[in-house]
């Protein structure tokens, strides 16, 4: 489950939506602003040029009249121009221009020298001008008028600033709207994701709020229908399973009373077998043997049904796994067949359950693993580990998945001395103790069961509770 989720990056759609909003909003307002700016600039410049040209034509007419009689009287002319005040005049006489701070653009001068009227924009000494050049006919003089365009350009700059600012604000606004809308839009998706996860985690009564008659409302409705169906189905399954378990438990329980009598009767028969004729004594032996098998089966059935019903409680205390293994091996007469090595860290766990797990694992190894078993105690720094290895034929791959199921047998035709519940009981007990059992096996190379148990367990407080730290 974790692998594909690592590739999923939540928030991507939200980012994409936001970016799309910013692009659409930013580009359209940007284009609009730029277009209108260019339009305004164009017409303002055109206006300015037109005004300058008209004024210059008027100026040249004045110059014609002034210079006709006295061709040298440029001074008078300049004085008259200066009275108007809104332009600066540069006079060219016989191809010579007095040196000054305002330079005449070359292109313009060439045009005017050819006897034509022209204008050009240039910046001189930090001031933007539109320069109009015009020859004064029949005087050998040309006039250049510099019209100050500072005002125009500052207006344009101001417009530029205002438009850029407005554009930035609009772009930010569209980003904001994009984020908010995306979040709004995707909130139901996120809610559905969370709901699906909590369903998966087992909170089957999780539902989506069904607000609104839009697509998401419809989606929520069908999601909820699915959840209803799922919950119903799982409830039915759980109930069926509980019924089955109850039945198993009831059957096993009902078997107890007659079984108790049978066990005692078989024992009595066995005790008096010496006084029976030979073949009857043999039958008494068989009865005793089979009653023993039946008893183990019923005991195991009861235990597994209690474990599966979650009715078992853990009585934790300090346990030395090594002592426990040694004691159980001795008690069951397995001394010759089982070797024990290593040492496990001290455990706080349920002694009887641990004994049950290990006895079942070792018993299983002895029965299916060629009559010998190797027990190894150890730890990996975090958990205590007990491995039980055998040199038997190994466990076929296909069977390994069902190894811990109830009554699972590699070869269904084979009858076994065990109840078929030993490994299931071992696993359930291990889970109850907060641990796990794993199995490794290669065909022909035996099988190794590894019991993993937490070293420190938090225990309920109470008179017989044990904390992780011991006295000695």
């Amino acid at each position, binding site marked *: 489950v974790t692998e594909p989720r690592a590739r999923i990056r939540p928030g991507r759609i939200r980012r994409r939506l936001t970016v799309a909003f910013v692009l659409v909003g930013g580009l359209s307002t940007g284009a609009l602003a730029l277009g209108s700016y260019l339009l305004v600039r164009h017409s303002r410049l055109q206006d300015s040029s037109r005004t300058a040209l008209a004024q210059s034509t008027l100026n040249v007419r004045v110059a014609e009249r002034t210079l006709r009689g006295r061709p040298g009287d440029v001074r008078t002319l300049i004085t008259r121009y200066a009275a108007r005040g809104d332009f600066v005049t540069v006079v060219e006489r016989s191809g010579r221009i007095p040196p000054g701070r305002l330079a005449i653009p070359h292109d313009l001068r060439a045009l005017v020298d050819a006897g034509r009227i022209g204008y050009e924009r240039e910046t001189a000494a930090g001031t933007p001008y539109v320069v109009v050049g015009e020859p004064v006919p029949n005087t050998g003089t040309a006039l250049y008028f510099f019209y100050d365009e500072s005002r125009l350009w500052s207006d344009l700059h101001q417009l530029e600033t205002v438009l850029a600012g407005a554009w930035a604000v609009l772009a930010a606004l569209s980003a904001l709207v994009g984020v908010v809308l995306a979040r709004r839009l995707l909130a139901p998706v996120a809610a559905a994701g969370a709901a699906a996860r909590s369903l998966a985690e087992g909170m089957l009564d999780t539902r989506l709020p069904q607000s609104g008659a839009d697509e998401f409302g419809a989606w929520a409705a069908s999601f909820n229908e699915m959840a209803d169906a799922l919950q119903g189905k799982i409830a039915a399954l759980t109930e069926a399973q509980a019924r089955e378990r109850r039945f198993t438990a009831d059957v096993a329980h009902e078997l107890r009373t007659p*079984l108790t009598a049978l066990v005692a009767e078989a024992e009595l028969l066995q005790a008096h077998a010496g006084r029976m004729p030979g073949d009857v004594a043999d039958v008494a032996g068989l009865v005793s043997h089979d009653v023993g098998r039946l008893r183990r089966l019923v005991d195991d059935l009861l235990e597994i049904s209690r474990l599966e019903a979650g009715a078992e409680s853990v009585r934790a205390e300090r346990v030395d796994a090594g002592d426990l293994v040694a*004691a159980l091996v001795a008690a069951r007469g397995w001394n010759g067949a089982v070797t024990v090595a290593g040492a496990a860290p001290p455990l706080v766990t349920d*002694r*009887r359950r641990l004994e049950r797990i290990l006895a079942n694992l070792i018993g299983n190894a002895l029965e299916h693993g060629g009559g010998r078993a190797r027990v190894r105690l150890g730890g990996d720094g975090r958990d205590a580990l007990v491995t039980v290895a055998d040199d038997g034929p190994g466990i076929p791959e296909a069977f390994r998945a069902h190894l811990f199921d109830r009554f699972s047998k590699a070869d269904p035709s084979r009858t076994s001395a065990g109840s078929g519940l030993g490994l299931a009981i071992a696993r359930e007990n291990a889970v109850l103790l907060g641990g796990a059992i794993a199995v490794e096996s290669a065909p022909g190379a035996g099988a190794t069961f590894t019991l993993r148990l937490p070293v420190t367990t938090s225990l309920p407080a109470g*008179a017989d509770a044990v904390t992780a730290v011991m006295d000695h």
Partner: protein
Amino acid sequence: MDERVLLVEDDSSIRTVVTMGLRDAGMRVTAAGTGREGLDHARGAAFDAVLLDVMLPEVDGMEVLRALRRDSRVPVVMLTARSDTVDVVVALELGADDYVTKPFQMAELVARLRAVMRRATASRDGDVVTVGPVEVDPDAFQARRDGEEIALTATEFRLLHELASHPGQALTREQLLERVWGYDYLGDSRLVDVAVQRLRSKIEADPARPELIQTVRGVGYRCAGARR
């Protein structure tokens, strides 16, 4: 031997075969099929031990046990269907000395019965030891406070004597199971816990805050103080 055992069990097959088995083991058995009948027998004659089924018609095993414990410290072994229901703890709290889970092996049942009877009868010579104001007298098989006898069952007395004989020393549940109950490494440690609780309720001034028998967390129990 000739121990006298009262068996109270409603299932006639079990009753019959257990009776036979116990007789084979050399005990004298009186069998009763109901709780009422069992109580009548118990009042009519002295027994060395009572074997009592928990599930009985009319008066159930717990009621019988309660009635017995009102005036008797006869060792009682309960026969229970399951080892881990509240039944076991309730029975132990009511003063049962031990329990055996069905189905049981006769050998196991006989061993348990013998163990409880041994606890109740074996004479134990030894000095009187004291725990606070309580005197534990193994010769008289009695515990006394200010000369007054405290009514203890045989198991409770043995447990108190074991703890009192090792003042200040923590004894593990396994050690107690072995020395008091005579069990191997897989005895049920609830036997110890419940017996300690009962003992405290009889000898402590405030059983909720025990001073004489202290719990050693993660280990077991300890009798307070040194010999005085």
